[in-house]
């Protein structure tokens, strides 16, 4: 009986490996292509493994996408900072104060996440044009924050609402104001929720293509998503360079999955259920 059972679980693991392998094949294919010489990609049958590989693709990627990668970094970091600065006080207030209109505000935060990005891009283009912000980091950071802020407020508020009110009240009896309570009592306890909010703000901004392609008239602040897009348009034959750029652009996601897996999981479910 025990043996029979062990065989069955082993079989299930094998089946799971095959399924996951199949679903992740496109990723393998990206990595494989990134290490092939340009000519190796134009062979039939395809080279299934990157044996005798080269770093040509990566050299090309760093050469042409170095600046866009740096731009992505700056925009993503800026978005994280702006998102936390805006959403932490808001989440604190929404979880602590009984204010009129709080329900309306929460509903608005839920609803604005359904506004199609293209509508935002269309009108933000007009706004950025009027304010002279087109093709600046500020424009991209502000635009990307529209995706991150509502999500961050909701997820932080949901967490802060679970912190017992007595924790803050004790400090307030000792004469601390709300700012002090937020800073020294609530924030330290909310570390995990903050990491989740920051992480998703980073991923949203890092992956943004729509705002990057619409709010940029020149290449000075072009992030890597637009870089790849232009790269395919310009050199259709250099797939190894394109794929190497894709691999590099995926690194933040992969790193976050490894070092911050439980925060990612919290964000996925938090994003779906919103509370």
């Amino acid at each position, binding site marked *: 009986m025990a043996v029979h059972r062990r065989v069955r679980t082993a079989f299930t693991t094998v089946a*799971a490996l095959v399924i996951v392998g199949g679903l*992740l094949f496109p990723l393998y294919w990206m990595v494989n292509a990134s290490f092939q010489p340009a000519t190796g990609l134009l062979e039939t049958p395809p080279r299934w493994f990157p044996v005798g590989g080269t770093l040509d693709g990566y050299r090309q990627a760093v050469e042409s996408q170095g600046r866009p990668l740096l731009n992505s970094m700056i925009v993503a970091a800026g978005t994280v900072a702006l998102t936390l600065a805006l959403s932490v006080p808001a989440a604190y207030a929404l979880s602590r104060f009984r204010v009129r209109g709080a329900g309306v505000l929460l509903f608005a935060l839920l609803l604005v996440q359904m506004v199609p990005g*293209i509508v935002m891009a269309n009108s933000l283009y007009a706004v950025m044009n009027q304010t002279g912000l087109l093709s600046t980091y500020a424009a991209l950071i*502000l635009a990307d924050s529209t995706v991150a802020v509502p999500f961050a407020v909701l997820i932080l508020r949901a967490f802060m609402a679970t912190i017992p009110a007595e924790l803050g009240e004790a400090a307030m009896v000792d004469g601390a104001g709300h700012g002090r309570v937020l800073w020294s009592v609530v924030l330290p306890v909310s570390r995990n929720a903050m990491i989740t909010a920051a992480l998703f703000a980073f991923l949203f901004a890092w992956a943004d*293509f729509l705002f990057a392609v619409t709010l940029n008239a020149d290449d000075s602040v072009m992030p890597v998503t637009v870089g790849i897009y232009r790269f395919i348009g310009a050199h259709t034959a250099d797939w190894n360079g394109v794929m190497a750029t894709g691999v590099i652009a995926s690194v933040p996601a992969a790193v976050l999955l490894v070092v911050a897996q439980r925060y990612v999981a919290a964000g996925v479910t938090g994003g779906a*259920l919103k509370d």
Partner: protein
Amino acid sequence: MLARVGFLAPIVCYLAVFFGYPLAANFTMALREYSAASFYTGEAPFVGLANYAAVLSDPVFGTAMANTAVFTAASLAFQFGIGLALAVFFQRHFPLNGVLRSLLLIPWLLPLVVSGTVWRWIFDQEYGVLNQTLLGLGVIDSAVPWLSSTAMALPSVTVANIWVGIPFNMVILYGGLQGIPTQLYEAAALDGAGPWQRFRHVTWPLLRPVSAVVLMLGLVYTLKVFDVIMVLTQGGPANATQTLTTWSYSLSFGELDFGLGAAVGNLLILIALVFAVFYLRGLRTSGAAPGTKGGR
């Protein structure tokens, strides 16, 4: 009182400036003849509903509507179906379960532009792995133009989008499955229910609230898909993959007629809003009495 204002004022101002104003601007833009020159001269003559009339009578409108409907329906059906199958599968206990489940998340975390680029390489007519494999196996006689034929482009783009959406569906549905008490399965098994009957009479009805949330979020998300289509086909060939989103983009940023682009964008909001109402109503009923609507 002052503290409350201080804490809430920034977010309220932010929402007004970055959502309220742009949405209002989009609404009025659609009523004006808003060209690239309008940004410099400041002149955008009021044209009433002319932009909407132009959009609705454009032959592309019907195509984009149909494409959006097919793309959205097929994406949702397969993402949900495959996601649910995977979620049920991963409920079993076996070694490496946790690791494999988190690996499945990767496609969801990648920038969509990267995923789109990978699929463009897979679908490449001459050197793509799909055609090479199918030709090698003798399934097809000649290379299929996955992305450049009007017949195949929409299915191909949809496949790429399904792939992107599977992890999200799987993770949420898996979470929902974990919430179903195991005693129910044990009781059903005692009553002689087989695996299919257990799924049909325990899993499916109890998972319904979660399923509704996943499908609604998937719908709202799929309506706004932009990156994948832009990287793979840019709405072509001959509008074969043009959705309302990509059409709005090409009207505004390709033809530089922001009035027309805004009109299409507003139609998109209208559609999203209709479904949002369903979603929020569903959320309320499922939140108030989880599971009670199951059965049938």
